[in-house]
């Protein structure tokens, strides 16, 4: 490339995108120099992804895009037609989307997907193209390029899929890469490797536009940060400026909402608190440690093992796991996907029968009971899942969902407790008349919490309760959970892949790997001085926001 190293690879001024008369992006300007990483952060709906796609002319057929200037490698594309855009894509700008399972065609071999840009842009004989595909797969660190090229996205793990997607984006060595939440669906160790890969590209002079909601990820890579809110850049500066000395209240709130490294009991949410929610007061005293000596645990798993039949053998999802949760205590369970966390949750809820071992709920071996005997006890244990929406009957309104969960309320009768319950989770009483589909993600999770608490349980199982939420909403939900858990003295099993969240929420932590608990102890102990090598690796791979 004969390009002035100082001239930007991307130069955008006053980019605007509207869908059906509604402005989604309102005048975004940004420049990216070779080798520079610029990050756009913001919550969902802030216009991040639309901005990214508009830079490739892919905002959608129903989008109206305009810009004062839209130059890629000095070439003005503001009025480019579809043909011209097709030549720009992949050659000048590579796009990496999140979640490669759906971003790669599940019916085509990965190699063919990577070959596409070579076939479309280069006059290259098929044999040379295939050789280049293997070279690219090797370049992105695919363990067995030859095999991977023949596999389809469904046959690869999340991390390898993401590598394949990156290989397709860099096939023509474009001077600008746009990565839209490139690590969002990945485990921390995989995320660390993908981020290292992206860092290598910028070190070699590729410009990178990183779209992310995760400030810790952004901090690892970005030279400059743009904070986007409602389609407008409200703050802009070097990474150190924006994260170290934020000028706007919104940026400060975003930073404050990151749970990692913040002690238990310190509220995370400082803005957009819905009316009616009392601000959580930081607990001056140390977390109330239950007296383990004479207190019987409310929930106990005693040497529990569960295996599933799979083609070609048995897969032991949970292997000799023992754990206990006391009244007023939160036990955090961390581990990567496939480590058996969710099976533990299902075992604790007696939805899955253990092969061996016992699940004991308040002294009763409830995994051994018949379901009919178990049913009256079910109201003593509540559960909150990641995807609240799919756990609601979409035809029921919120009031009916909650009334149904309140055992004391007569069927069909107006439920006096619903309003009180909604108030406790920070929702207006009028929400009772709405259906789950019309609620926002944060509101849905509040309803899920209200439902879990409707029958006044003693034990609460939270399985990735905040994983689908924006960081500021996550902060509000975590604060709410923390407050309710303390005020009601709940025994809480808190399951998450996010070490930062668990560290903030848990008194004690258990680390799961391959169905086994490899380390357990007080939260500060486990995260501060991990003993097991796996825990140490997890802690090292977790991006932390350095204040």
């Amino acid at each position, binding site marked *: 490339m004969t390009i002035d190293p100082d001239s930007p690879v991307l130069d955008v001024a006053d980019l605007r995108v509207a869908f059906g008369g509604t402005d989604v992006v309102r005048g975004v300007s940004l420049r990216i120099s070779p080798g520079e990483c610029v990050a756009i952060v913001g919550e969902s709906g802030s216009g991040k992804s639309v901005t990214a*796609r508009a830079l*490739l002319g*892919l905002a959608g057929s129903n989008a109206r895009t305009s810009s004062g200037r839209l130059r890629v490698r000095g070439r003005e594309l503001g009025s480019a037609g*579809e043909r011209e855009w*097709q*030549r720009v*894509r*992949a*050659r000048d*700008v*590579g*796009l990496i*989307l999140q*979640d490669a399972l*759906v*971003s*790669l*065609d*599940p*019916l*085509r071999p990965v190699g063919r*997907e990577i070959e*596409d*840009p070579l076939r*479309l*842009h280069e006059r290259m004989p098929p044999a040379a193209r295939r050789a280049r595909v293997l070279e690219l797969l090797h370049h992105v660190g695919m363990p067995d390029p030859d095999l991977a090229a023949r596999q*389809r996205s*469904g*046959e690869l793990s999340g991390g390898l899929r993401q590598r394949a*997607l990156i290989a*397709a*984006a860099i*096939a023509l060595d474009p001077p600008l890469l746009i990565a839209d939440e490139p690590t969002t669906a990945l485990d921390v160790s995989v995320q660390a490797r993908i981020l290292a890969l992206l860092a290598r590209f910028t070190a070699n002079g590729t410009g990178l536009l990183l779209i992310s909601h995760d400030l810790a990820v952004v901090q690892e890579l970005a030279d400059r940060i743009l904070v986007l809110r409602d389609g407008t850049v409200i703050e802009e500066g070097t990474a150190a400026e924006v994260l170290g000395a934020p000028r706007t209240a919104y940026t400060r709130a975003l930073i404050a909402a990151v749970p990692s490294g913040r002690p238990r009991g310190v509220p995370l949410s400082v803005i957009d608190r819905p009316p009616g929610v009392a601000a959580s007061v930081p607990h001056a005293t140390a977390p109330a440690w239950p007296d383990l000596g004479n207190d019987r645990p409310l929930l106990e798993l005693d040497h529990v093992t569960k295996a599933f039949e*799979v*083609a*070609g*053998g*048995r*897969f*032991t999802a949970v*292997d000799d796991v023992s754990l206990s949760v006391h009244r007023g205590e939160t036990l955090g369970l961390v581990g990567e996907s*496939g480590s058996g966390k969710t099976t533990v949750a299902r075992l604790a809820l007696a939805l899955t029968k253990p092969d061996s071992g016992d699940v004991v709920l308040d002294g009763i071996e409830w995994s051994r009971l018949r379901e009919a005997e178990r049913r009256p006890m079910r109201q003593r244990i509540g559960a909150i899942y990641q995807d609240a929406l799919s756990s609601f009957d979409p035809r029921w309104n919120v009031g009916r969902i909650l009334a149904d969960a309140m055992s004391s309320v007569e069927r069909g009768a107006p439920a006096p407790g619903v309003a009180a319950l909604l108030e406790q989770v920070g929702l207006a009483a009028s929400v009772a008349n709405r259906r789950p589909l019309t609620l926002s993600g944060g509101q849905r999770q509040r309803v899920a919490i209200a439902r879990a608490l409707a029958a006044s349980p003693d034990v609460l199982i939270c399985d990735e309760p905040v994983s689908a939420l924006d960081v500021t909403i996550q902060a509000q939900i975590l604060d709410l959970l923390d407050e309710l858990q303390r005020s009601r003295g709940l025994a809480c099993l808190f399951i998450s892949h996010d070490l930062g969240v668990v560290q903030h929420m848990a008194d004690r932590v258990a680390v799961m790997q*391959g*169905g086994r608990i490899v380390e357990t102890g007080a939260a500060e102990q486990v995260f501060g001085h991990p003993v097991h090598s796996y825990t140490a690796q997890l802690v090292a791979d977790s991006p932390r926001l350095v204040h």
Partner: protein
Amino acid sequence: MTRGSPADPRGQRRGRTIRHAGLLVAGAVFVMWAVATLTFFAIRLIPGDPAQAILGGPGSQASQEALDQVRRDYGLDQPLIVQYLAMLGRLLTGDLGTSYALKVPVADLLGAQLGGTLLLALLSLVLAWILALGLSLWSTGRGRIATAVGEGIELTAAALPHFWLAAVLIAIFSSGLGWLPPVATGTAAGLVLPVVTLAVPLAGFLAQVMRESLLDAMQQPFVVSAQARGESTTGVRLRHTVRHAALPGISLSGWALGWLLSGAVVVETIFAMPGLGRTLLQAVTLRDIPVVTGVVLLISLVYVLMTVLTDVSSRIADPRLRQEANR
């Protein structure tokens, strides 16, 4: 993780494929046996004396001696279970019996008719696929008007009854324009109207299914990544979304062929085409039990074969199905 990893995944996969094929064959044999049995007993429920039918029907005034003679010759005086076992035995040796009415072996009769009907059904299936793919590709994702037009055509086509469509086509293209013959002439021109009659309603139905999966595929993120690699709109359709749209069509094709064969009864009658459908209709009217049994068995066999074929082609078209079997 203690996942039992197979030492030889390729060998394991082959083993599974063989097991899968074995299950398919066993299922097919069971279906054929069940059809033969059901037909055998169901036909006994039809009022009327088979011996009468053999001697030319109730109007033939056959003598009691002739009837007794026929009953002995055809084994109709034996207990039902003996007749049933005798039939199974004959079927196992491939003997379908002799037509009561025409006095020729059923196998020869059907052999002569099968080709024409299969050709009709297969041509209709191919035409239906072309029409359905063309219509759904043309009308999906190209704005509200195209969608409305496409949906309207599909709905109308799927609702058309064969006899009505045949009559309208004859009225326009034979009586009106005089382009095509109103009855099958054994030439290519004579096949056009019967094939179109069978294909259009099926195309409407297939297009509805294909449009839905096409629309679904077009909203997937992999379309955006394909476009981001520089693929044109046409390229995205040809290399990505069409395959996704075709998947449900493939699964439905086994069912569709059976549906076409039943439609053939009507269409062959209307266009006076020789074929299985017309043979079946005549055999039922004449109570020609061996022919009815033969046609029913043959159509079941075609159905079974088509289902196996559909299963295999679905696995070829959708690698995820092969993977699921491996899990």
